[in-house]
């Protein structure tokens, strides 16, 4: 009702005001000299107080004009005609009045360009090639002066009263601000304005036409241009975060992060001491601090990628993967700076980490053998520690618009100490004991690595023609030494008196590798849409592995070399790789096809036996990619690539490894490179306005000469395994996702489904075995979000897993896994916030794994923001309220089916205080759109 009244009122107002807008203005135009009438002259009526255009008209063929329906008020009459001076008059209009201006005489433009007399002042002027550059600060202007005021002060530059700028006697056509055209803001309409004191340099030059910039051919067309280079961010400041958290059962989580910036220079530092599983900064903090463990880049398709370096060594990688109870102490420093107009930049990071973790890991394995079945149970107690120092840096130099250099380098030192205790037993199908024992490995290791990547790129004269040279170096030295003590009892010959095997050895390992990879790439444009890329790559990889095992001598000293488990081996390979690829890019089609051929030479040398083997391989690297965009939101894509993988030195070194005497690993010097074919087909359709998304993809990969295992399990339950090349391995995976939004109630719903079909071949006791393992997942999710009120979601999925090995087709493994995950956030008045999430996990038992692994893992926290700008957050949280969390993993893709459960962080309660502080922070991290 109120709305209706308002509407009626508005209508009445419009109507009544329309009634009062009935004054009129008329007149006639003529040229004083030519005495001609001026048809089509524009007669504009502007509001006197702010020059806002109210009405306009054009004069008729006799030069007469008339404007009707004018409201009372004060106006400016503006009459314009090409090449004539503007006529302006200020006048008032009364209601219902009619004003006749009579004959108005227009005058042709007199040449009256009033030049402003420039007062010469001493300032810094530089000549850089064709460019005259003025240092803005050296010319004095009053506070809050406009850019025009500054320009008036510059010698050689004049600004007339209409704002027209003349430089070096020529009219300035364009004024740019950091390369973008500058118009000068109307201070009565906008508050933001470029002030003179924000300008760093004023550059005056002749801009070539876009055509000549594009072709590189000077067509002689130039426009006088002024570029205002703004000062780098005027503000200096800092921002940071302190998080202090203390909990029950000795849990704590403390973090400090500070980031200070001064123009383009940034210095940041962080420190974390935590035993709740946090090992480094979160993604968002890494992004805002400019420090990351990963190499961040943009792919040709425009997708962001992050590549993490993988410096794991055999055994324990030195990272937290959820196994055990961790204690992390880490800190880092970051520095970056840009200078020389951002042409040069440097980014340096240093990180130190001390990480300790201990826990228990239980593994139950079902050995499916051609004639029998074993159950293997193992309990591992681990206590590991690592100290890592890492320094990395990136330097970039954009020499000019055509060439650039980028150098990325990192160096790492690591010291690891590991203590592992194992208790094992093997049982037959009928639960009688085959073997049991315990094993103790204590080792210390040092890893050092240095990697460098130098990339030089140059755009050549023809648009699209480029060359680049990329040289990579990787050096690593890994040494370790430790003791192995193992005692195993075997009951297969006589259960009453088992035979015992004791291994008591001191082991050293020395692993050195140096690789250089140099790649030369040349791109030739064939047309605006297509291009050809040629490349040549030389890869040199030299590695040496020296492994020694020593038995005790009579004095109890480890002095006797055990040659069975010792070897000194060199593996060098050299690859020449060259190829061509063609790519075509249009609005709808993106297509790329190419092939590389690689000539690889292996030199393998057993340095103790002095046997050298020389092998040659030809490797192919075919690839094609095709994508079709039906619209910008609906795509179909297909890709194929064939990839060669070289065997690792660990796989190829012909030595027996008895780190676990029940699972002896033997190297295979005859290993060939493997070749994997990878085919992808996908379709996606995103409807933004309907909030609907559909995605489907299928991937098929099959491998020739895949790396697999040849296993020999004897009647005492001992296994000897060796990496071999097999054929017939493949995997097919498929994904289907469909999300949509319903309006009432406002909910987002999603369905997802995926499957995996795997075939893995291996050899077991001389018989070839094929294991087929499949999994099928169906999932559903629903979510609802109301800004500043709630953010809730529920996810549920069911997975069915099967596995059959051809050596015993009658034994099949199959089970269901169900997960339900509600995740709820409620935002209450006075900045209270409640979060709770829970994992209900049901893992079906199988004949081999009949223990209960069902878990309800429930977390909850409450927080409140206080102080100005919500600077302080106080949080009370409860992790794993029901104390049921359990590390869990099942592997079914070979005839060795295993289930793994391990210690993980369980219930604790914590009180945390998080303080966010900042001064002049120019950015808000949550502004990021994706």
């Amino acid at each position, binding site marked *: 009702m109120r709305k209706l009244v308002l509407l009626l009122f508005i209508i009445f107002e419009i109507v009544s005001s329309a009634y009062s807008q009935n004054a009129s203005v008329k007149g006639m135009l003529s040229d004083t000299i030519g005495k001609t009438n001026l048809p089509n002259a524009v007669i504009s009526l502007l509001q006197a107080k702010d020059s806002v255009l109210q009405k306009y008209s054009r004069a008729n063929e006799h030069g007469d004009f008339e404007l009707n329906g004018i409201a009372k008020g004060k106006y400016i009459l503006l009459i314009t005609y*090409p090449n004539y001076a503007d006529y302006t008059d200020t006048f008032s209009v009364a209601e219902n009045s009619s004003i006749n201006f009579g004959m108005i005489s227009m005058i042709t433009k007199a040449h009256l360009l009033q030049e402003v007399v420039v007062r010469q002042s001493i300032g810094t002027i530089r000549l850089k090639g064709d460019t005259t550059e003025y240092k803005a600060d050296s010319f004095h202007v009053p506070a809050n002066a406009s850019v025009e005021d500054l320009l008036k002060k510059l010698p050689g530059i004049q600004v007339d009263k209409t704002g027209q700028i003349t430089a070096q006697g020529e009219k300035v056509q364009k004024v740019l601000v950091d390369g973008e055209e500058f118009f000068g803001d109307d201070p009565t309409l906008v508050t933001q304005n470029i002030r003179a004191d924000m300008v760093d340099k004023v550059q005056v030059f002749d801009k070539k036409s876009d055509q000549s910039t594009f072709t590189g051919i000077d067509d002689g067309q130039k426009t006088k241009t002024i570029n205002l280079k703004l000062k780098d961010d005027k503000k200096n400041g800092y921002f940071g975060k302190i998080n202090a958290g203390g909990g029950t059962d000795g849990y704590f989580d403390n973090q400090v992060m500070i980031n200070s910036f001064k123009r383009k220079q940034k210095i940041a530092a962080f420190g974390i001491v935590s035993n709740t599983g946090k090992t480094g900064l979160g993604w968002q903090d890494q992004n805002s601090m400019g420090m990351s463990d990963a190499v961040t880049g943009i792919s040709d398709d425009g997708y962001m990628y992050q590549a993490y370096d993988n410096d794991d060594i055999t055994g324990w990688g030195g990272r937290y993967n959820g196994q055990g109870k961790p204690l992390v102490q880490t800190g880092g420093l970051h520095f970056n700076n840009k200078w020389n107009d951002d042409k040069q930049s440097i980014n340096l990071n240093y990180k130190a980490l001390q990480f300790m973790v201990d826990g228990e890991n239980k593994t139950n394995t079902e050995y499916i053998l051609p004639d029998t079945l074993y159950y293997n149970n193992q309990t591992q107690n681990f206590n590991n520690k690592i100290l890592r120092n890492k320094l990395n840096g990136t330097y970039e130099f954009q020499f000019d618009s055509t060439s650039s250099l980028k150098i990325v380098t990192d160096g790492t030192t690591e010291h690891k100490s590991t203590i592992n205790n194992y208790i094992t037993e093997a049982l037959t199908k009928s639960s009688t004991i085959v073997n049991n024992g315990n094993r103790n490995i204590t080792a210390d290791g040092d890893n050092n690595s240095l990697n460098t990547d130098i990339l030089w790129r140059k755009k050549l004269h023809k648009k699209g023609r480029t060359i680049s040279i990329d040289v990579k170096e990787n050096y690593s030295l890994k040494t370790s030494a430790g003791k192995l003590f193992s005692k195993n009892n075997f009951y297969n010959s006589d259960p009453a008196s088992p035979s015992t095997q004791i291994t008591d050895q001191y082991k050293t390992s020395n692993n050195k590798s140096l690789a250089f990879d140099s790649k030369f790439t040349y791109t030739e444009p064939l047309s605006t849409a297509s291009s050809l890329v040629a490349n040549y790559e030389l890869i040199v990889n030299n590695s040496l592995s020296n492994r020694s095992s020593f038995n005790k001598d009579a004095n109890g000293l480890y002095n006797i070399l055990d040659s069975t488990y010792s070897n000194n081996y060199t593996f060098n390979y050299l690859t020449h790789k060259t190829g061509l690829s063609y790519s075509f890019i249009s609005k709808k089609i993106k297509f790329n096809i190419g092939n590389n051929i690689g000539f690889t030479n292996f030199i393998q040398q057993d340095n103790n036996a002095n046997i050298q083997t020389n092998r040659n391989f030809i490797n192919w690297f075919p690839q094609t990619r095709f994508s079709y965009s039906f619209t910008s939101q609906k795509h179909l894509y297909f890709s194929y690539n064939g990839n060669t993988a070289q065997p690792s030195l660990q796989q190829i070194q012909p030595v027996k490894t008895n780190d676990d005497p029940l699972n002896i690993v033997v190297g295979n010097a005859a290993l060939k490179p493997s070749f994997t074919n990878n085919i992808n087909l996908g379709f996606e359709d995103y409807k933004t306005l309907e909030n609907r998304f559909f995605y489907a993809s299928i991937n098929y990969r099959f491998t020739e000469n895949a790396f697999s295992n040849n296993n020999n399990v004897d009647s005492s339950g001992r296994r000897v395994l060796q990496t071999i090349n097999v054929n017939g391995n493949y995997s097919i995976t498929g994904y289907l996702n469909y999300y949509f939004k319903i309006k009432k109630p406002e909910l987002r719903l999603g369905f997802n489904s995926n499957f995996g079909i795997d075939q893995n071949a291996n050899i077991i006791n001389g018989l070839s075995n094929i294991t087929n393992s499949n999994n099928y997942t169906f999932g559903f999710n629903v979510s609802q979000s109301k800004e500043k009120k709630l953010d809730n979601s529920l996810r549920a999925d069911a997975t069915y897993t099967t596995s059959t090995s051809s050596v015993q087709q009658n034994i099949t493994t199959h089970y269901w896994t169900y997960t339900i995950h509600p995740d709820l956030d409620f935002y209450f008045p006075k900045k209270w916030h409640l979060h709770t999430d829970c994992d209900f996990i049901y893992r079906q038992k199988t004949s081999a794994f009949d223990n209960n692994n069902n878990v309800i893992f429930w977390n909850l926290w409450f927080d409140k923001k206080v102080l100005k700008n919500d600077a302080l957050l106080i949080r009370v949280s409860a992790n794993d309220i029901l104390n049921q969390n359990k590390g869990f993993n099942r592997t079914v893709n070979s005839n060795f089916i295993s289930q793994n459960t391990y210690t993980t962080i369980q219930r604790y309660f914590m009180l945390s205080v998080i303080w966010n502080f900042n001064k002049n922070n120019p950015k808000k991290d949550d502004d990021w759109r994706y």
Partner: protein
Amino acid sequence: MKKINCLIFISLIIQSSTAQNSRFVTEGRIEFERKINLHSQISGDGLWQDEYKKALPKFQTNYFNLLFSNNKTLYKPGREVAENNKINNWWALPAQDNIIYTDLDKQQSISEKNLFEKYFLITDSTRKISWKITDERKTIAGFECRRANAIIMDSIYVVAFYTDEIITPGGPESFTGLPGMILGVALPHEHITWFATKLISIPVKETDFKIPVKGKKMNSAALKESLKESFSDWGKYADPFKKAALL
């Protein structure tokens, strides 16, 4: 190249004829060059954003043609720029290839807008813009233009340059309402500009105005309501989308 020379020649003829005889143009075709600063659209600051700026060119250029005759104009995408196919812009805004027919006598326009591949046909009255006329001049495509400033949609600052030598009071996109043809528009804070590159003097027939027909029919207010519904749970991330769609 020959073609370009020829066009320059034509526009020089037009220039000289208008300069000497004050001949007024009532029909023809104007080519507009739209430039968008892609880097300014990347919000936030950090490692990823820095990498994106390196991968994206700073400016994206597109061309549009404005066909006009007396009081009718038709604005639509012009020649394609092959370079743009290589740009992978995650921040791409909707409604970047509008077709707009405007009847300036009736103050009506029909716009075909592609919003995330869904087409809308918006029939509404032309936008009422309170233009502030200034004394500043600029020569665009050989025409002397006068600058006018305005604020539209509550917050978008517009700088326009119009010439009284072209009688049709039209302009690119939805910008009209000045006493002559708008040959340049800049949204300085949105980092977008439209500038005429040339005027091609050709006779224009009534039948040349192919009124857009594709898309769901509605008016601006309904479109605004529909966008509000679509982006109801997007928060502030949808603001740039909404702004671009309604411009």
